[in-house]
C-alpha cells in the first residue's frame, strides 16, 4: 500500500466524503441569507473539497485485497442487524467521483442562474449530494434505501422551487413515480431480510449486501423481490414504459437540476441493478432478462424516434437520455463481460456527455430565455465558441469514436450481439437515429441564417463566459480522455465486473 492509501485508510474516508456535503449544508444554514455570494462560494468550496477527497480515495481502491475498500461498519439498529456499512469498489468509486465532479460543476453552474432563495438552493443541493453518495457507498440494504429516498426530497425541491413554469406538475410526477417504485423495493428489502432471518434464525446480516448475496434461494421470493427492485430501478433509469416522468422533470428543472438528474440520478438505477438487484436475485434476473432486454431495445429505438420530433431542446435531450440509458440496461442484462463493461462505461459517459449538453442548453437559456428549437437558427454566427462546444458534446452524444460515448455503446452492442444478434441489430439502428435527431437539432439551431428571434436579442446573445467554460472544460477533457483511453476505466472496475458476473451467474448458489 502506498503512503497515501495508508494515511487515508486510517480515516473514515467514505463517511467523510458522504457526510461532508451535509455538514456543509448545515454550515450554510448558519450563514446569513443576505450574503448570497458568500453562500455560493462556501457551497462551491464544500463540494470541491468533497471532490478532492473522492479523488484521494480513488487510488486506494485497487490496493485492498477485499472486494470493497475502506469498509466502515457500525451497528445502527441492532434489533434488526441493520448497520451503517459503507464500502467502495471500482464501480462505485467511479460513480462517486462522477457525482462529486458533477456536484461542484453544478454548483458553479448555478452561480448565475440561481438568484432567488440562494441559501435554500445550495443547502438542497448539498443534501442531494450526500444522498447520492450514500446510495453509491452503502452496503447495507436499509441504509441504501434510506439514502435512495433522501435523494428524492432535495430533488423535489430543486425542481419544484427553482424550476420552470410547469414545475409543480413535473416535480410531483417525479416524486410519485419514484416513490411507487421505491416503496415496493422497501417491501422487497424487508422480505429479503426476513427470509434471511428465518433461514438463519438471526437478524445479523439480514440487511447486509455482502452477507445476503448468494443466499436467497426461494424462487418465489427471488422473482417477487427482483420484480420490486427492478421496478424501482427501471423507473429511475428510466426504462420504457416508465420514462415519462423524465422529460417533464428535465424540462422544468433548473439547469443544474437537469444536469444532476441526467448525470447522476439516472445512474442510481443502473447501479442498483448492478450492485443489488442482480447479485441478490440472480436466478430471477436471468428469468427476467429477455423482458428487460426487449424493453431496453424498445427504449433505445423509441426514445430516439420520439426525440426526433421534439420541439423543446431539453425534451429532446431528455428523450435522448431514455435512448442512451437503454444501452445501460441492455448491457447489464447481456450478462457478459462486454455488455457489463459497456453498460458501466455508458453510465459514466452519459453522465459526462448529457450533463454537458444540459449545461449548454442552460447557457443558451440564460441568454434567450427560450428553448424552442423552431425559434432558433443561425446561432453559430453569433457565438461560435458556444456552437463549437455544443457541437463537441453533441458528437460525443452521437457516439463518435475517439470521444467517450463510443466505447460504451459499442461494447454494449457487442455484448448484446453475443447474446442475440437480432437484438443487437435492432439496437444498432440507433446509430442512425441519434445522428438524425441530434444533427437535425444542431442544424436547425446553429446553422443557416440568423433567425428573427435571435436577431431580436441583439447584444444579449453573448458567447460563453469563463465560468461557463470552467464548468464545461472538465467534462470535455474527460470525454476526450476516456474516448482515447476507455481501458483506464474498464481496468478500474474490472474486479467489480468480475464479481458481478460471478454473482449474476448464481456463482455461489450450489
Amino acid at each position, binding site marked *: 500500500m502506498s503512503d497515501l492509501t495508508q494515511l487515508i485508510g486510517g480515516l473514515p474516508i467514505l463517511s467523510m466524503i458522504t457526510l461532508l456535503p451535509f455538514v456543509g449544508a448545515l454550515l450554510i444554514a448558519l450563514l446569513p441569507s443576505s450574503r448570497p455570494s458568500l453562500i455560493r462560494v462556501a457551497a462551491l468550496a464544500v463540494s470541491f473539497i468533497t471532490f478532492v477527497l473522492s479523488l484521494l480515495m480513488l487510488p486506494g481502491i485497487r490496493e485492498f485485497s477485499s472486494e470493497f475498500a475502506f469498509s466502515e461498519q457500525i451497528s445502527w439498529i441492532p434489533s434488526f442487524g441493520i448497520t451503517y456499512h459503507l464500502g467502495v469498489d471500482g464501480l462505485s468509486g467511479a460513480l462517486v467521483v462522477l457525482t462529486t465532479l458533477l456536484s461542484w460543476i453544478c454548483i458553479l453552474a448555478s452561480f448565475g442562474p440561481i438568484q432567488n432563495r440562494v441559501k435554500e438552493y445550495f443547502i438542497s443541493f448539498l443534501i442531494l449530494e450526500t444522498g447520492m453518495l450514500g446510495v453509491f457507498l452503502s452496503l447495507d440494504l436499509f441504509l441504501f434505501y434510506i439514502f435512495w429516498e433522501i435523494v428524492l426530497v432535495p430533488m423535489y425541491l430543486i425542481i419544484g422551487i427553482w424550476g420552470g413554469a410547469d414545475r409543480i406538475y413535473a416535480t410531483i*410526477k417525479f416524486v*410519485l*413515480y419514484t416513490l411507487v417504485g421505491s416503496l415496493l423495493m422497501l417491501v422487497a428489502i424487508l422480505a429479503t431480510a426476513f427470509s434471511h432471518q428465518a433461514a438463519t434464525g438471526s437478524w445479523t446480516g439480514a440487511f447486509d449486501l455482502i452477507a445476503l448475496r448468494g443466499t436467497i434461494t426461494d424462487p418465489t421470493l427471488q422473482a417477487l423481490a427482483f420484480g420490486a427492485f427492478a421496478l424501482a430501478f427501471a423507473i429511475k433509469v428510466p426504462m*420504457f*414504459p416508465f*420514462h*415519462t*416522468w423524465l422529460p417533464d422533470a428535465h424540462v422544468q428543472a433548473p439547469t443544474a437540476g437537469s444536469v444532476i438528474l441526467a448525470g447522476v440520478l439516472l445512474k442510481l438505477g443502473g447501479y442498483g441493478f448492478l450492485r443489488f438487484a442482480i447479485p441478490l436475485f440472480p436466478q430471477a434476473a436471468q428469468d427476467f432478462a429477455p423482458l428487460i432486454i426487449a424493453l431496453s431495445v424498445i427504449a433505445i429505438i*423509441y426514445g430516439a*424516434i*420520439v426525440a*426526433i*420530433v*421534439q420541439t423543446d431542446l431539453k425534451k429532446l435531450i431528455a428523450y435522448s437520455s431514455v435512448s442512451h440509458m437503454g444501452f445501460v440496461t441492455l448491457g447489464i442484462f447481456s450478462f457478459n*463481460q*462486454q455488455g457489463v*463493461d*459497456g453498460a458501466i462505461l455508458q453510465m459514466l459517459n452519459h453522465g459526462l456527455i448529457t450533463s454537458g449538453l444540459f449545461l449548454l442548453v442552460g447557457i443558451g437559456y440564460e441568454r434567450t430565455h427560450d428553448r424552442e428549437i423552431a425559434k432558433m437558427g*443561425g446561432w*453559430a*454566427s453569433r457565438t461560435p465558441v458556444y456552437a463549437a462546444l455544443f457541437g463537441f458534446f453533441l*458528437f460525443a452524444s452521437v457516439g*463518435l*469514436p*475517439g470521444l467517450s460515448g*463510443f*466505447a460504451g455503446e*459499442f*461494447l454494449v*452492442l*457487442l455484448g448484446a*450481439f*453475443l447474446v442475440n*444478434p437480432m437484438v*443487437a*441489430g435492432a439496437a*444498432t*439502428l440507433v*446509430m*442512425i437515429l441519434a*445522428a*438524425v435527431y441530434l*444533427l*437535425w437539432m*444542431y*442544424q436547425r439551431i*446553429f*446553422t*443557416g*441564417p*440568423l433567425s428573427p428571434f435571435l436577431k431580436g436579442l441583439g447584444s444579449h446573445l453573448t458567447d460563453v463566459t469563463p465560468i461557463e467554460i470552467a464548468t464545461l472544460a472538465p467534462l470535455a477533457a474527460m470525454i476526450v480522455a476516456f474516448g*482515447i*483511453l*476507455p*481501458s*483506464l476505466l*474498464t*481496468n478500474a472496475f*474490472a474486479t467489480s*465486473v468480475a464479481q458481478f458476473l460471478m454473482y449474476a451467474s448464481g456463482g455461489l448458489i450450489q
Partner: protein
Amino acid sequence: MNVFNTLIRAASEGGEPAAQLPEYAPLLLILPLAGFLFTAAIGRRLGKLAHLVPLGAIVATWGIAMSLAIPALLGDLGEHGASSELFTWIASGSLTFNMGIHVDALTGALLLVVTTVGALVHLYSVGYMSHDPGYWRFFAYLNLFMFSMLLLVLANNLLVVFAAWELVGLSSYLLIGFWYTKREPGLAAKKAFITNRVGDVGFALGLMGLVAVFGTLDISTILAGVEAGQLAGPAATVIALLIFCGAVGKSAQFPLHVWLPDAMEGPTPVSALIHAATMVNAGVYLVARMSPPFAASHEAMLVVAAIGIFTAIFAASIAFTQTDIKRVLAFSTLSQLGYMFAALGVGAWVPAIFHLITHGFFKGLLFLGSGSVIHAVEGEQEMPKMGGLARKIPITYATMLIGTVAIAGLPPLAGFWSKDEILGEAFKFGYAWVWLVGMVVAGATAFYMFRLMGLTFWGKSRVSESVHVHESPWTMTLPLILLAIPSIGIGALLGFPFADGILVHGLEPIFHPANVLLGHEHEAWTLFGIDGLLMLASVTVASIGTVIGVRLFRSDNGDRIRAITARLQPLYVGSKNRWFFDDLNDLIFVRLGTRLANAAWWFDRRVVDGAVNGVGTLTSTGGRGLRQIQTGRVQNYAFGIALGLAAMAVAYLVIGS
C-alpha cells in the same frame, strides 16, 4: 502512471510476426492531429497565416508517407508489410482492441493518393479560401480530415478503422457544412453524415459478427483466420455484406449515393479531396482490405459487383443532363466508384485499387479545375452560364482537358490503364454482363465529360457581362499542374507492363488469399489474344463517346441538343431529376419518418404518459366520488355503520358455519 503501464503492456503484447515500422511512422498521424489541435486552438488569431502550420504538417506528412508508401509498393517492407502497436484502446476482459498502424502495399497505394492529393489541396486552398472569414477553421478541418483518413488506412484493427471511418465522416460533415450561415450546406452536411451512418450500422454489426467468430478485430488475425477457413457459408455472406454496407455508405454507392451530389455544397477543395480523391475511396479500400471474407462468399461478391456496376451506369445516366459543373463531376465520381466496386465484385482486386489511384488523381484534378473555373467566374457553378472560357483561363483549361481525356479512358493517360484492366478482368472472369455495362458506361463517361468541357470552355461565352473572368493565382494553378502530371503518367508508371506492373507486384501478395478462395490464377497478358481485343473494344467505345461529345458540344449546338432531348423527353426528365431518387427518399424517410416519429410522440404523450396521468385522474376521480358519501348528516353515517354491522354479522356467520 496507468497510461504508461497500458502503453508498455500493449507494446510488449504486440507479438506480431510482421516487420516493425520505423519509429517515426506514428508521425503520419501525429502531425495532422497536431496541426488540427494547434489551428483549432489558436488559428483564429493567426489570420491569413493560419495555413502555415497545417500546410507544413501535411507536406511533412507527405514526405513521410512517400518514404513508407514507395517501399511498400515496391515490396521492400516485406510481403505483408510492417506494423507497430501503439496502445490498448478499448479493453473488456480478455477482449482488447489495440491501436496500431500497419503499412503494406495496399496502404501504400492509398497513402500515395491521400497524401499527395491532400497536400496539393491544402496548397490550393491557400488561394481558393483566401477571402473566407473561416480561413483558419478550414485548415483545421482539413488537417482533422487528413488525420482521420490516414488513421483509416493505417489502422491494423478494424475497430480503429471504424473509428477513423466515423471521424472522416465527421470531417466531411464539418467541411460540407463549412459555410454554416447558409441553409443548404447545413442540410447537405447532415444528409451526408446520416446517410453514411446508415451504412455504418451494417459495418458495426459486421464487426460484431467478426468478434463473435474470431474474438478479435485485429485485421491480420482475421484475415489469417479466413484464409484458414474459419469463416464460410452464410456467416461469411452475412458478415461480408454487413461490412459492405459500410462501404456502400462511405463510397456513395446505390442506394446510399444520395449524399454525394449534395455534398458539393462544401468548398470545392473539399469536393476534390474528400468527395473525389480520398474519403469516398474508403469503401473500396475496406472491401479490398477485407477481400478474403468477401471472396469466401460468392453471393457477397455478386452483390458487390451488381451494386457497383449498377451505380456506374445509374450515375452516368444522371451525369448526362446535369448543368452544375460540380454535380456532373460528383455523378461521375459515383460512376467511377461503381466501376471500382464492380471490379472488386468480380475479383479484379488490383485493377480496382489501380483505378482508385488513377481516379484519385484525375478526379482531384478535375474538381480543383472546376474550382478554378468557379473562382474565375466569381462563384457561378451553372454551366449554361459559362462557355468559351478556354482562352481566358488557359492553364485551367489545359489541365482540365488532361483530366477529361484521362477519365474518358483514352490511351495513354491514366484512366485508360485502370479502366481497361477492370473491363478486361471482368470479361475474363466470366462476368460478361459487368463488362457489357462497363463498356456502355465507358462510352457514356467520355461523352458527358466532353459535354462538360464543351459547355464550360468551348463555344461562345454566356458569362454575365459584369463578371471579370480571370485566371487563378499560382497557389491554385500549381496544384492543377502538379496533378496533371500523374493524371497523364501514373497509369503507365504503375500499370505497365500489363498484368506485371509495379502495382500488380506489390498488391498480388495481399490479394493472394482472396484469389485462392476465388480460384483466380494469375495469367500473362496477351496483346494478340483476348486481352488485346478487349483493349481495342474499350478504346473504341471511349473514342465513340468522345467523338459524339466533342461534335455535339464543340460549338454552340443548342438547337440540335434541344431537338435530341425533346425526342428523348421522358429519359431527359428522369435523368435531369436523378431518376427521382431524392424525392423517393424524401417521401419514405423524411415524410413517412416524420410521421412515424410524430405517431410515436403521440403514443408517448397519450398512451404511455396518458396511462400515468390516467392513473392520477382515476385516483382523484375516485377520491371525489368517495367523498360524496360523507354527507354531513349523522343519520347517514349511522346508517353506514348499521349496514357495516349487518354485513359483518352475515360475514362472520358465514365464516363461522
